[in-house]
């Protein structure tokens, strides 16, 4: 039984990644958004080095959060519209596992590229070089939490025609702790303070999100499908 669950997990992950790579143009959207938002800051506020290095962590984190938020609508929408979601809901394999696989696929095509791009933006924002590693670490832990929490919002609104705005409203309050601790970690590293405590808290968020978000999202999907 366990073997088939993990086989189903990998198969679902592979399917979702395959679907993403068949529609490559959509993959670039959150990434371009991320770069644009961050690069507008020096232009719109001030190119002053002092200011930018202070704001860098926050700006990059906010941009990553918004980019994730933008990409959420696609998480279940296509599967809902063509009926694939129905087939997942009534499959004997646990829906929890399907949601986890789909969310992991979502993170691999949105969160991970954001993470990999962040050092470049860090340079642009005059982020101190020794804080770059901490920024990446905080995003590495934080962006999966954003994807997982986002999955709940996406699952709740997938049956509605105007899901987009509602997802933001539902999900943003839950994103705020992640944002606070994410930027906090980087800020502490910049100031030379110990930041491992913040990282531990973020890891706790991640553990909680992996355990609970898929359960909530599967319950929400069952409701959305039964409309």
């Amino acid at each position, binding site marked *: 039984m366990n073997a088939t669950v993990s086989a189903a997990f990998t198969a679902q992950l592979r*399917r979702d990644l395959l679907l993403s790579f068949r529609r490559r143009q959509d993959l670039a959207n959150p990434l371009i958004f991320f770069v644009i938002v961050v690069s507008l800051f020096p232009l719109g506020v001030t190119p002053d080095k002092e200011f930018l290095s202070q704001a860098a962590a926050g700006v990059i984190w906010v941009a990553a959060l918004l980019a994730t938020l933008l990409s959420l609508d696609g998480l279940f929408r296509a599967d809902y519209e063509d009926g694939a979601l129905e087939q997942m809901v009534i499959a004997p394999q646990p829906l929890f596992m399907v949601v986890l696989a789909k969310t992991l696929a979502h993170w691999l095509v949105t969160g991970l590229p954001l993470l990999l791009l962040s050092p470049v933006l860090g340079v642009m924002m005059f982020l101190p070089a020794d804080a770059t590693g901490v920024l990446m670490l905080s995003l590495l832990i934080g962006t999966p939490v954003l994807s997982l929490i986002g999955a709940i919002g996406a699952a709740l609104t997938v049956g509605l025609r105007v899901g987009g705005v509602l997802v933001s409203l539902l999900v943003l309050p839950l994103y705020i702790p992640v944002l606070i601790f994410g930027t906090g970690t980087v800020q502490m590293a910049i100031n030379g303070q110990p930041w491992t405590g913040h990282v531990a808290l973020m890891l706790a968020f991640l553990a909680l999100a992996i355990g609970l978000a898929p359960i909530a999202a599967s319950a929400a999907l069952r409701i959305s499908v039964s409309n």
Partner: protein
Amino acid sequence: MSDTLLEVRTLRCERDFRVLFKDLSFTVNAGDVVQVEGPNGSGKTTLLRMLAGLLPVHEGEVFWRGEPMQRVRPMFYEELLYLGHKTGVKDSLTAFENLRSWAALRAPVSDDRLLEALERVGLKGFEHSLAHNLSAGQQRRIALARLFVSDAPFWILDEPFTAIDKKGVAELENLMIQRGREGMAVLMTTHHAPRIEGELKKVTLGRVAA
């Protein structure tokens, strides 16, 4: 042959304050091929979705192998194949990938069997074409290939013959009869006049006065 799979007791359904059906009771035994009939809007799809667990049952009871459905739903899903109007065939996956990803959430199936199923529904040579490049009928056939992969003893099929040519319909009807003889059950809706009339049990909807 009296092995009861599904039993529906006094089921009632309302949509938009209209009663679609009420006091609906019937049983599906192993070996039955049951056709749900009734005019458009009489609640056929709604009934099938309710039985598949995609819509909540508010009034009435459904039993699976003698147990209340809400208690045995996970077991029920292991034995169910449901094919709705929306088939879940992905445009940007090939016929083979579509079938494989569907099967992966069910019992493990070898690739050979998946290819054989695609051949049985007449998609030989199209296994590795994107569904997007196939005709509506062929896309439908990708979904129908699941029938040849599935060992599930209970099928719920909503208009399985849509967009399928005559020869394809005849083959599917034969498959259903054969499945019935093997002691499995099929519950379906169709507007085709089935050739297999004599072998069908019927459930008729749409007799409720508005």
